[in-house]
């Protein structure tokens, strides 16, 4: 066993760090969910280095990767620099296209993704299909050479600046639940699409997501990903990747360390929480050990991911990450006392209101992308072999 990075991995990491030191500007920092010109320019520079397509076949624009951990090392460093990580485009969409997409979809879209040409929105959720994604009702009717899509999606992050919707729709009225969904790619500028903003709780910097309405939107059959009516299974596998790629422990580390460093420096009229207050010291120390455990679960997930889809480990990584988000923000607020509640705009607000905003959105991680409850269910079922609690009582079935 060896937890050390290899020489090649160390060399790659130094290269990444040097690149980030040069290119991560103030405008790039924190442009996680916003599509600024600075962000696009930055990600394109990474694309030019060949870093987006690492490990993907060269014929689709991929680049050989020296290590199965390349993407991980890159994301950890990106996150440390507070720059946008390589997320769903590569982690979810490119991977699924590679595994199940037609040759023409691979040739068409993979190079675009690896070159950072265009943005994507994951388009699954509907009012009656949240955790229960099998319940999707936005319908795509077979019109011969194309599908016609009618319906509505909500909580669609990035919809207001995306070029394509990566979308799951219902394609059969007859087939049973889970076997009646299909994965399709929809051009965002197709006629018949309209969007309305939804804002997350918070102040001026609150995240935006969207409602998206589809009214007789035409989608060519060539834009069906994989087989018709297999969409649910593709989506589930992709969500395993998403849990890992998007909700990574690196975020929680960065949050913890950002807050820790702030507490070391902040001075309340001569009192410093972590040097002068034994209670805060010990609480932060305890949290540090829990954040470290998050790093371990992520390493575990990485090592497994090098071999297979890490569904159980990804769920642990996801659930733990969401818990750390919560615990870190809540503790930080408690340590700050009433000052923990100050919003951006107050000169006394900790980290310009960052802690408060992060606190308000902590719950989001507990429900989005297969929340904590779903993650725990996956662990119980897939790892421990416990029966599905929705199934009929086991004994009466015998």
């Amino acid at each position, binding site marked *: 066993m060896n937890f050390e990075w290899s020489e090649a991995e160390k060399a790659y990491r130094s290269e990444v760090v040097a690149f980030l030191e040069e290119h991560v500007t103030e405008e790039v920092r924190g442009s996680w969910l916003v599509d600024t010109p600075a962000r696009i320019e930055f990600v394109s520079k990474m694309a030019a280095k060949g870093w987006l397509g690492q490990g993907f076949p060269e014929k689709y624009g991929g680049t050989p990767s020296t290590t199965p951990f390349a993407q991980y090392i890159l994301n950890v460093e990106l996150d440390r620099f507070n720059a946008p990580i390589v997320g769903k485009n590569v982690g979810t969409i490119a991977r699924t296209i590679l595994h199940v997409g037609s040759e023409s979809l691979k040739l068409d879209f993979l190079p675009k993704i690896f070159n950072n040409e265009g943005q994507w929105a994951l388009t699954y959720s509907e009012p009656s299909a949240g955790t229960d994604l099998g*319940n999707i009702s936005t319908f795509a009717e077979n019109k011969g050479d194309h599908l016609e899509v009618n319906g509505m999606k909500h*909580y669609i992050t990035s919809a207001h600046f995306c070029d394509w919707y990566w979308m799951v729709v219902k394609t059969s009225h007859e087939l049973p639940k889970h076997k009646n969904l299909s994965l399709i790619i929809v051009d965002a500028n197709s006629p018949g699409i309209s969007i309305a903003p939804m*804002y997350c709780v918070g102040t001026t910097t609150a995240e935006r997501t969207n409602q998206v309405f589809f009214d007789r939107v035409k989608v060519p059959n060539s834009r069906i990903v994989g087989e018709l009516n297999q969409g649910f299974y593709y989506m589930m596998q992709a969500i395993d990747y998403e849990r890992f790629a998007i909700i990574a422990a690196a975020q929680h580390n960065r949050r913890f360390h950002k807050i820790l460093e702030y507490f070391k420096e902040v001075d309340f009229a001569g009192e410093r929480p972590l040097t002068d207050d034994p209670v805060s010291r010990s609480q932060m120390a305890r949290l540090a050990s829990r954040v470290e455990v998050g790093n371990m679960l992520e390493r575990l997930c990485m090592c497994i991911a090098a071999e297979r889809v890490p569904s159980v480990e990804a769920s642990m990584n996801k659930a733990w990450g969401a818990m750390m988000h919560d615990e870190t923000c809540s503790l930080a607020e408690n340590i700050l*006392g009433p000052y923990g*509640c*100050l919003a951006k705009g107050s000169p006394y607000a900790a980290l310009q209101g960052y802690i408060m905003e992060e606190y308000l959105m902590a*719950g989001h991680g507990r429900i989005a992308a297969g929340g904590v409850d779903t993650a725990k269910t996956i662990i119980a079922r897939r790892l421990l072999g416990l029966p599905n609690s929705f199934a009929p009582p086991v004994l009466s079935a015998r």
Partner: protein
Amino acid sequence: MDIKLSEDQNLLQDTAARFMQRECGFEFLRDIENNSNTGFCPHMWRSFAEMGWLGINLPEEYGGMGMTMVDNVILLRELGRKICPSPLLHTVVTAGESISRCGTEVQKRELLPSIVAGTSVYAFAFQELSRFFHPSHIRCEAKVEGDAYVISGRKMFVEFADRADTLLVVARTGGPAINRKDSSGLTMFLVDRHSVGVTCELMPTMSRDRQYEVVFDNVRVPESCILGNVDRAWADLEPAIQKTAIALCAYTNGAGFEMHARATQYAKDRVQFDRPIGQMMTIQMYLAQSIMELYGADTLTLFTASNMDQGLNVRGYVGKMKAFCAETVCRNMDTGSQIFGGMGYMEDHDTTLYLRRGKQLELMLGGTEYWLEVIAEEIIDRQPVNLS
């Protein structure tokens, strides 16, 4: 032993609940958050006065209702359910109690009736540029100059300061604190909000209420503004803060109950996997855990209030109550939001008003750390335990 409400208490509860239901809806709350420059509705404040609520605990001889602290809990719980914004807490409880406890006869005659009538609003200028609540952290100074005092310093989180008529200022007159447990050397002053040298600056918060930073720049006040004993404010103020804590917890618990009721209703209505999500054990466990904690919090609050009404020493109970209610209700706001799924985190969704208040209610009037230390002092340093 009997925990049933009396007929009068039932009436108070029903009246308050009906009033809040009618007057304090989400549209009203959002309007106050976004458009009001006072942070509360002066018209509603007058109604409070008409119903006698602003004199609830104040002595009858000064126009008050002379009701019990338990009555106060019953009222504040209803206000809390609808997270009603008003300066009642510090006007009626903190200031009202401090004045009735240690004001001179002249002060009582002059000040209490106007609290009851709703014609004067008080703000509590206590917290300073410290994370801690303990009075040893007060540095704001009042120096004698002839027959007047000159106050200089900076107070933080002074709720409704800008709109208040009078600020209840706790300032240092007896030299710096010798250690973190030193509560001596402090004096209370009743300072006209419009005195020369007083400036207020809004502090934007998570719950979008009206907290102010108040700067006292050589503010001259006559000796007659002193409330209670010079250098020994804490002896009178601590009981007033205990009362405030009880009222605050009642409000907080009310907010917790309302959020819980909304989440429970949603768990019954929201269908996923062809069943109400409330059919899932996970959701049941969240809701069951929270309601158990809320019952505990509520009963502890009533118990503490009742003991206070009996004239017993409730310091330890107040500590336990404030520490427990604050944490419990905040956690309940979190799990409640979680049950609403994505909606629970959308700005337009009404329960986010509760989510945004949970943590702030927890940290108001001393964070949990302060109250845990109060408990520790009572159970470890003071109270002998009789094990037989």
